[in-house]
């Protein structure tokens, strides 16, 4: 990571601005590597009581829209850059937040107003969660509404559509990404489905050329928020842009599409800070905007300044600062070649002969104990290290049990339940692996498995430790990350029971294979280089 420790200048008078700028740009920065950023001339834009946050610059650069809690709840306000005057856009009861400009000077924002208790709302069949509204020429128009939450909208550069986070149809602690075309009669569509225990995508940001979408994603309870990007036409194949060790959210593309500004925190930082990333190389730079938390950066239309919020005054107020980044030709992070997929163990059942066949043709004969369960001792080839691997099982559950039942488990010296496929008491299928400390990391299916009906499950532990699960060929909404345990040789593989013989499956395993890499027919994890180089070319 390139870390820049940049000079910042707080100034009050205009005359000091240039001096501060020059000092900051000329001498106040230390650079590192091929990517350097310099910032200077930090100027307060709003003052007084109340928190002013989530600022966005208008396309013509003359105004900044933001949310403010000066009146108690959240309202949308607008700052005229020329006069410094602030006027209300959406105020009154309820929360109006997360403004996003349309190309013609309108604003899309989130609005919710909850009167009464949750029980009262439920009994009354309320459809008033948080929805999107469009403000234009002093009038507000409802775009979406339901008993869910639509938030953090981003209007496309041509104004034809809105990307946003939504909980519509979600069941867990989660949010997915949606797209609403503003063409008449168009319906909103979910473009990235994330659901489950804790998994969500928030604050999408479309690149200026419309080719790539960027967002913040939380993959599990124990993980940090991270930035992801993908081709706008296929969000299922995404690249994680920030390291799991840091927390990163609220990303915004620069107007030229070459940089990303976001809110971040890494070990040793004094507070939340504004970071800038060069996405192709992954180089990062933390802009030192002064004491306090600095968050939610948004670019000026000319790409030379950022507006952000900082709480050094005791309230979050808005500030602007000049930013110059030097983009020396970057040595793109060498993309690790995808490991070649290889079936390392496959179940073979011929009459009474049941074996696990290895990639080299060797086999391990089953150990039976008079039940449907199968145990294979020391199968070769399942020493995946930290590389990608997968487990594919076809199975039938005869009847659901009141507790967890094991479909397949890989027993390792590193952890007795190194990876597992199992059926929860809820009837949902799960795939799990481990983090380096041995913690469980798992994903579960969107729906319970149907009893008596064959089902195919595919669990993938990707090379970066993220987990994916397919059921009957369909990618499930659950996500998880951090499963980077290094696997040595397997001690045994058990099908239909736990490694110690317990938690027996009320059903049958029809087929099983386990291998390294991504299996054939499944999209590979996109690389940073593939995403950013190919689109640029």
């Amino acid at each position, binding site marked *: 990571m390139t870390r820049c420790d940049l000079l910042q200048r707080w100034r009050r008078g205009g005359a000091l601005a240039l001096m501060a700028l020059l000092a900051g740009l000329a001498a106040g920065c230390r650079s590192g590597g091929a990517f350097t950023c310099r910032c200077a001339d930090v100027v307060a834009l709003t003052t007084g009581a109340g928190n002013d946050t989530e600022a966005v610059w208008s396309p013509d650069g003359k105004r900044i829209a933001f949310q403010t809690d000066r009146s108690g709840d959240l309202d949308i306000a607008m700052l005229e850059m020329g006069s410094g005057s602030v006027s209300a856009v959406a105020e009154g009861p309820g929360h109006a937040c997360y403004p996003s400009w349309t190309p013609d000077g309108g604003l899309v924002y989130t609005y919710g107003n909850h009167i009464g208790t949750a029980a009262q709302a439920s009994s009354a069949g309320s459809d008033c969660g948080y929805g999107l509204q469009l403000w234009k020429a002093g009038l507000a128009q409802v775009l979406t509404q339901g008993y869910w939450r639509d938030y953090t909208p981003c209007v496309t550069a041509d104004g034809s559509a809105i990307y946003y986070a939504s909980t519509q149809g979600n069941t867990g602690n*989660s949010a997915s990404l949606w797209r609403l075309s503003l063409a008449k009669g168009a319906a909103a569509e979910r473009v990235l489905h994330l659901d489950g225990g804790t998994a969500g995508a928030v604050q999408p940001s479309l690149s200026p050329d419309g080719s790539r979408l960027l967002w913040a994603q939380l993959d599990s309870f124990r993980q940090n928020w991270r930035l992801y990007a993908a081709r706008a036409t296929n969000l299922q194949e995404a690249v994680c842009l920030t390291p799991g060790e840091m927390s990163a959210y609220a990303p915004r593309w620069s107007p030229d599409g070459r940089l990303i500004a976001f809110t971040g925190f890494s070990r040793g930082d004094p507070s939340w800070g504004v970071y800038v990333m060069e996405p192709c190389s992954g180089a990062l730079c933390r802009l030192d905007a002064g004491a306090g938390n600095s968050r939610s950066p948004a670019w000026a239309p000319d790409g030379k300044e950022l507006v952000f919020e900082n*709480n050094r005054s005791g309230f979050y107020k808005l500030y602007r600062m000049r930013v110059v980044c030097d983009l020396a030709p970057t040595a793109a992070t060498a993309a690790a070649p995808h490991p070649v997929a290889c079936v390392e163990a496959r179940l073979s059942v011929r009459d009474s002969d049941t074996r696990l066949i290895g990639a080299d043709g060797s086999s391990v004969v089953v150990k039976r104990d008079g039940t449907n369960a199968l145990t294979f001792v020391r199968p070769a080839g399942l020493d995946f290290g930290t590389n990608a691997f997968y487990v594919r099982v076809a199975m039938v559950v005869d009847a659901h049990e009141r507790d967890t039942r094991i479909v397949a488990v890989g027993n390792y010296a590193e952890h007795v339940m190194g990876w597992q496929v199992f059926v929860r008491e809820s009837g949902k299928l799960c795939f799990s692996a481990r983090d380096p400390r041995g913690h469980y990391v798992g994903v579960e299916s969107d729906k319970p498995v149907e009893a008596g009906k064959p089902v195919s499950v595919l669990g993938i532990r990707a090379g970066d430790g993220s987990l994916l699960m397919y059921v009957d060929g369909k990618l499930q909404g659950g996500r998880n990350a951090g499963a980077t345990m290094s696997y040595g040789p397997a001690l045994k593989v058990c099908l239909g029971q736990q490694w110690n013989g317990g938690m027996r499956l009320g059903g049958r395993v029809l087929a099983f294979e386990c291998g390294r890499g991504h299996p054939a027919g499944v999209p590979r994890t996109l690389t940073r280089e593939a995403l950013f180089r190919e689109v640029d070319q």
Partner: protein
Amino acid sequence: MRKQRLALLACAVGVAVDACAAERFEAAALVDSFDFAHVTARGGRLLFDTETPQGNVAVLDHVLLTGANTILWRNCGGATMRYQSAEERWPFVEAPLDKRRLPDNRPVHGWLRYYEAAPDILRHILNECHERGLRAGVHWPFEETHWASWTFGAWNFEHPQYWGVTATGQVWSGRCSLAYPEVVSHKLRLADELLERGAEHIFIDTWRSGGWSPEYEYVRPELERWLRERGAGPLPDFRDPQWCAFVSETSHAFFVALRKRVKASGRKARLLIGISDVDALTDAPDATLLTRGVDWQRLVREEVVDGVVVMSVKWDKARAFESTREIYRSVVGACGGRCDVLFPVTMYDFTKRGIPSYQEATKQAADKVAGELLRIAWEEGADGICMECVDYRNYSEKTCAELKSALEGKSRFKRELR
């Protein structure tokens, strides 16, 4: 035995009725109103509107069917306070108003806003308990998140510089480290809020840690202290008893500070600590120390806490009640009368140590198991029992009747002071 001697002395000097009445065998109920929020009658009507005073009174009435005489009301889910907390209210604790909180999408549950409900939920229910002659306090988990993104602390989100850090340098908002004085101050201000609302008991439940553990204590102050005290060298694994004991020094200091704060408040309030996975005590480090970095036996020895609430014990399936009795005896002995001791009579079974697991091991009905556990606790000299958590009808009518019968009969008073 100081506590017992004082009580006996009090009886002897003529205030026998009051003092002995104070030695009622305690039946503490952990109450989580959140778990009542989605209880429906036939036809789908919601039975408890837990954002209203009436709804919480109905919850309390239901809980009291068990015979409980102490109420420990859950004050939070993670660090999202279930009352109008000034400390955890700002800037916004609601998803999606803070976009770092992924929303809870369950019906009703996902739309509760206890932090805004008026009148203040905690103040109201503690007052209601006092008016009914119940002992009342809060059940405060030792966590800043309760396994869901929307429960993460608002204060945590504002202060990443105090977050926990793993040995590999991963920061995590799930726990701010007690090694920072600012974090301790924050927690003491939260305690002030609870005391000011009338809590007579502050029960810190280390069983519920929300994922926190010594694993996240590789923070600057702890690393510097390690260097000072132990010198350079490789840092131990977070499971290493050395590291856990080291971290426990910081946790211990927090409890000492909390003790002082409670005392300084001038209010008569007990400080209780919840411990889990308790085994017959030996010289080996116990589970609470190794997984939570809290040395509860030292807290007892140094009289930092007024009570120990045992949340689960590692009884032997082959000798369910006998082994339970041995563990209870061991704990009572270790506490030596320095503090109150409460043992579990719990329908919660996620630890596989609760009443359902006893049923499986002993083939006895739930009411009989509950009665037997209460009897063992009483016979072994405990000060009471703890029911974790009393949810809607999870203690059956028969179990409630069995418990009430014992609590009004043979186990009405503590054994030593009958």
